[in-house]
């Protein structure tokens, strides 16, 4: 499997990639013996690109996301985010990098139930010690289509609305890279579309980079490129494929 379409002309190629994985290996040791989750993955995520990572279960896609976001240390290899190497940094340095450079959206339980929508969105700014400006919070809430819901608590929102709050929370710090782990896994197809459109807009309008792990070809079709993982290795990629082609490529990989 190789690239079948030329890159989009309007994607700006800059000198350093948004995210660089260089020979990432991750070995988990357990009583049953060593398990290789990743076996030498090298890949560049270009600035302003939307990449979907797909693969059968156990292919290492979640591990890839966790290593890329500095949530887990690779056994071997190097991760560079915006030209900064993640390896060898302590928890506090990684945390600061995370809250300034990365945004996270995952399947469910994204929000703190004790806080209102407004407070959830403003939380990353508060954690950096900055006082959130009201207009900033309202701007991102407008952006995700949640105007008027600022005073609600997560329990009073639908699943799709909760995911949009999570996106708003990721947007507020203006991160360079968005990490999304099955962001539509718990949603129906029409709310999924809304959430994916918002991620799409992050790359198209503000030039942010999105890395999304998914098993859903429809979701993956929103990406510029689909990266296929199998058995801890990059098995191929597909640029600007539609859902049917992505599904076909997936079943080929699983078959």
């Amino acid at each position, binding site marked *: 499997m190789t690239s079948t379409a030329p890159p989009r002309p309007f994607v700006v190629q800059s000198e350093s990639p948004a995210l660089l994985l260089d020979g990432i290996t991750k070995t988990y040791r357990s009583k049953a013996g060593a398990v290789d989750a990743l076996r030498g993955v090298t890949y560049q995520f270009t600035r302003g690109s939307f990449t979907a990572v797909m693969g059968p279960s156990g292919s290492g896609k979640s591990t890839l996301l966790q290593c890329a976001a500095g949530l887990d240390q690779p056994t071997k290899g190097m991760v560079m985010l915006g030209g900064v190497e993640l390896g060898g940094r302590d928890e*506090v340095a990684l945390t*600061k990098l995370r809250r300034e450079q990365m945004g*996270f959206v995952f399947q469910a339980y994204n929000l*703190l*139930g004790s806080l209102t929508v407004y407070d959830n969105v403003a939380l990353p700014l508060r954690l950096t010690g900055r006082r959130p400006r009201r207009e900033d919070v309202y701007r991102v809430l407008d952006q995700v289509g949640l105007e008027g819901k600022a005073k609600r608590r997560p329990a009073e929102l639908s699943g799709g609305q909760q995911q949009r709050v999570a996106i708003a929370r990721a947007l507020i710090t203006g991160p360079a890279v968005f990490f999304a782990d099955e962001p539509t896994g718990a949603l129906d197809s029409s709310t999924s579309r809304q959430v994916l459109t918002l991620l799409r807009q992050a790359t198209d309008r503000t030039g942010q980079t999105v890395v999304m792990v998914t098993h859903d070809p429809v979701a993956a079709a929103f990406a510029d490129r689909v990266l296929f993982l199998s058995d801890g290795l990059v098995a191929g990629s597909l640029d600007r494929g539609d859902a049917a082609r992505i599904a076909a490529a997936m079943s080929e990989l699983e078959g």
Partner: protein
Amino acid sequence: MFFLSRQTVRRHRSLYAGSFVALAVGVFLLGLAATATAATVAYDGPAAASITVDLPQADPPQQVRVPLSDADVSGLQTVLSLVAVISGFITIFVIASTFAFAVASRRREVGLLRLIGATPRQVRRMVLGEALVVALAAAITGAVLAQLATPLLLAKASYTELAPVKLEPASPWVPLLIAISAGLVVAMLGARSAARRAAKVAPVDALREAELEPTRIGVVRIGFGLLFLAGSIVLLALIRPGTGEAVIPLSMFTPMLLVIALTLLAPLVVPWIGRLWALPLVAWTRVSGRLARSNVVATPRRSASLAAPILAISAIAGSMVLTLSFAADAAAATIRDTLRAPIVVTAPEHGAAVRERILGTTGIAAADGAIPIDLIRTDGDSAEVETAEGIDLAAATRTRALSPISGDLTNLTGKTVAISKELSGFEGYDVGDEITVTYLDRTADRLRVVAILPTAPGVTASMVLPPELARQHAPEATPSQWFILPAQGSDAGALVTALNERLTGTGASAVPAVEWEEAQGEALRQGNRFGLILLLGPAALYSAIAIANTLLMGSLQRRHEFVTSRLLGATPAQIRRMVLWESSLVGAVALSLGTAITVTVGVLIRRAMTDGMSDVPATVPWTVLLGIAGLCLVLAVGAALAPTAFILKRSHPGAAME
């Protein structure tokens, strides 16, 4: 982060309700102890009933007013400070375990915070902030309740053995402020380890489905556990015959250290004892016992925090009850061994006629009536009221065992004194030393120690004076008890009858010594019982809350697990049985550790106290001890079963798929 703390506490009210109640009760008890102490400090005895003595060796030299014994509130002060120590100890303990629980159940939420950019430090501050929010509310509630209850306590405590005066509430501000700050400090100490553990939660925990607790326990925890264990072993080794009277406080406070040690090491110990106790369960039940065993053994940390409050109260209460009972046994045996006379006459105050009537009775070989005399003993910078007695050596050496440990009683003439071994041990007096005393007629004197006698409270006073000296400074005093030795060949029973006939109308009465000894022992136990209720009552109430609290929280958190088991085909009765066995197992593990502590302390204290005595009866208060154990078990099982039944009734198996 304080803003976040406030919000989380509001949201997780049920999770923090336990900590709130525990701390409010703790501050209530501390506050009550503090306001009552303030009342005793503010109590100003009538000026006539006190004597001013010089303390020339104090720095700077000063004069103090010593209140005389019948208006003394120091007994109440001692008990109140003990109540405060025990309440404070149990409060730290309970707060630490409820906070650990609250944090463990919010692993995922903490992971999420870390993921979106909270540093470990910020998480720690958030948890401490939560503790502060809960602690502030609880401390103020407790203080208000304490203020409301103070008049009641003072009314109850007035005119009792411990405070034979009328106590009035003093200004509450300082004592309540002390109680509130103590409550806050205690809460923060208790929350510290929970906060540290929360800070260790990894951001990736937000992405994980299962909220599994790490099963390994930290090296630091094991280190501290071993340290406390070593410390308590050193203290246990001190509970031996040579240590003297200090063995009683030692045997009361060493269990606290042991409880801390065992609680720290519990995650290592609990699975083993759990497996042992589960053997019969697994043999007798089909599936519920097996499930209960794996639940207890597989989550040692959880089981350990459920067991902690049961362990604490059973060990502390058990050791205290056993120690006081053995102390009473030893005291009764001392009285029996010291008293040689077969007849005792107890006489009322100012019974001038009693002396003539006793001496006039035929068939008496020796009548030993000591003259009681209160005096103030000053030593360096302290002044104590002591009850001394002037004894007639000729009679007393025949009616009681008075062979001195050192010195010579024949020198007891003029300005001299013989003291008990206990007093000599406490104050470091030796034969030949001089003791400064002030009599109630306000004359001061220096008495030379001529002998040290075996300690025998109830029979021989701690200071024994020549009779002439006692008579000179207490001319009105008459003996309150007489030890009577019948003449050779005369029957003791007949002599008792004869004495009682002659004594009619004086208020005095004669009884066989055996009967008198029994009454003394009973009075001692009565006094102990009163002290125990005062000391252990609040602690027991507190632990009951704690036991119910932890098990209630433990069960409420398992809604998902219960509902899933229902979906898999478990009947509600099977789940209830599993919870029943599980909580019984935790209770049994905790009680075995508590019993181990109690037995160790009991054996040591008995050896220490009965040294050099023979045939000391061993009274084990089985009803009380079994009652404590039973109550702990009933509370544990009830508090685990009630929420389980509630959850099972309210939820349908289908809820597992939500």
